[in-house]
């Protein structure tokens, strides 16, 4: 990793916040189109926080979640997480596979693939918006889908951040439909 050659996105200005917020809204629009439901963004915030506080954003390090991780590659680096409560992730899978609600009870290859694709769409929509706005090349890595304690899921990425920084800018939001059939957390940490 050649950090010196990377573009660090300046997140101190209002414009940067607007770009990132626009990116998040674009990601949720992507998800909305994919599931065919109106999904709203709430509690969107962009702030600098201590890396060790990040698991708390997902309900604490021992909270059982389904997480989709994508690395950000290209002119800058970072991490994207989409997290759901397990039952909500199962509902989302049923919705996308056209199955009756309650059909999914765990994650096998097919379910992992579905959630990975959802993460991929959201990450790509987010990065496309940001890339176009700041004229940079940003691409997502292949998605990794995990179901475990939030702290454990986040550990690998947090370790890679803590190699260089103890605090980092994050963009976080809660998204969901009014009937709560689709609901989750979307978090981007930019280095």
């Amino acid at each position, binding site marked *: 990793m050649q950090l010196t050659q990377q573009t660090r996105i300046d997140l101190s200005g209002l414009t940067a916040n607007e770009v990132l917020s626009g990116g998040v809204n674009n990601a949720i629009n992507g998800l909305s189109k994919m599931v065919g439901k109106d999904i709203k963004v709430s509690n969107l915030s962009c702030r600098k926080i201590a890396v060790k506080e990040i698991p708390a954003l997902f309900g604490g390090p021992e909270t059982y979640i389904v997480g989709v991780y994508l690395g950000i590659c290209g002119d800058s680096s970072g991490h994207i997480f989409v997290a759901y409560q397990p039952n909500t992730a199962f509902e989302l899978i049923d919705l996308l596979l056209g199955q009756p609600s309650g059909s999914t009870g765990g994650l096998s290859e097919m379910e992992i693939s579905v959630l990975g694709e959802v993460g991929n769409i959201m990450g790509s929509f987010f990065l496309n918006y940001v890339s176009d706005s700041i004229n940079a090349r940003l691409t997502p890595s292949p998605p*990794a889908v995990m179901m475990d*304690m939030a702290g454990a899921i986040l550990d690998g990425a947090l370790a890679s951040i803590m190699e260089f920084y103890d605090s980092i800018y994050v963009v976080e939001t809660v998204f969901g439909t009014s009937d709560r059939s689709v609901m989750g957390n979307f978090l981007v940490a930019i280095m």
Partner: protein
Amino acid sequence: MVTDLLALKTQEIVVGLGELFVTCGTSTVISCIGLGSCVALCMFDSVTRIGGMAHIVLPRFDGITTETPAKYANTAVPSLLAEILKCGGNKSNLIVKIAGGAQLTLAPGINNTFKTGERNVQEVMLALQKAGLPLSAADIGGAKGRTMRLYMDTGKVTVRSIGGPDREL
């Protein structure tokens, strides 16, 4: 870094990423919650009943000094040992246990990006060997998250994963 010799109330101390905690308070439970690639290093003096835990995030620190020695495996081991000795512990009485070092991030193209868990465990082992501390028990590796707890009243150490019970280590 926190050293609390006067913990009088029953309390659970959660040791965060890159932190360490040492106590002789018998009503304290020290825990590292939601370990993935991180390693929880636990030391307990069975005679003086002084114990502590470090939440290790990364394998090595190769600089001169660090303000967060518990963050790195090679500096966490001597730091936790030093804190316990400073509180009156005795190296020859220490029971050392570790948990964590898993690899959860598995996906095409990024399999090799985070081998942090494996490297963390290797460096902890090396540092323990260097410090002359034998490892009593370990629950490491695999692809599952863990929570480790040290019960200061008995010295009992437990590890649990999602959906499973607390298992004594």
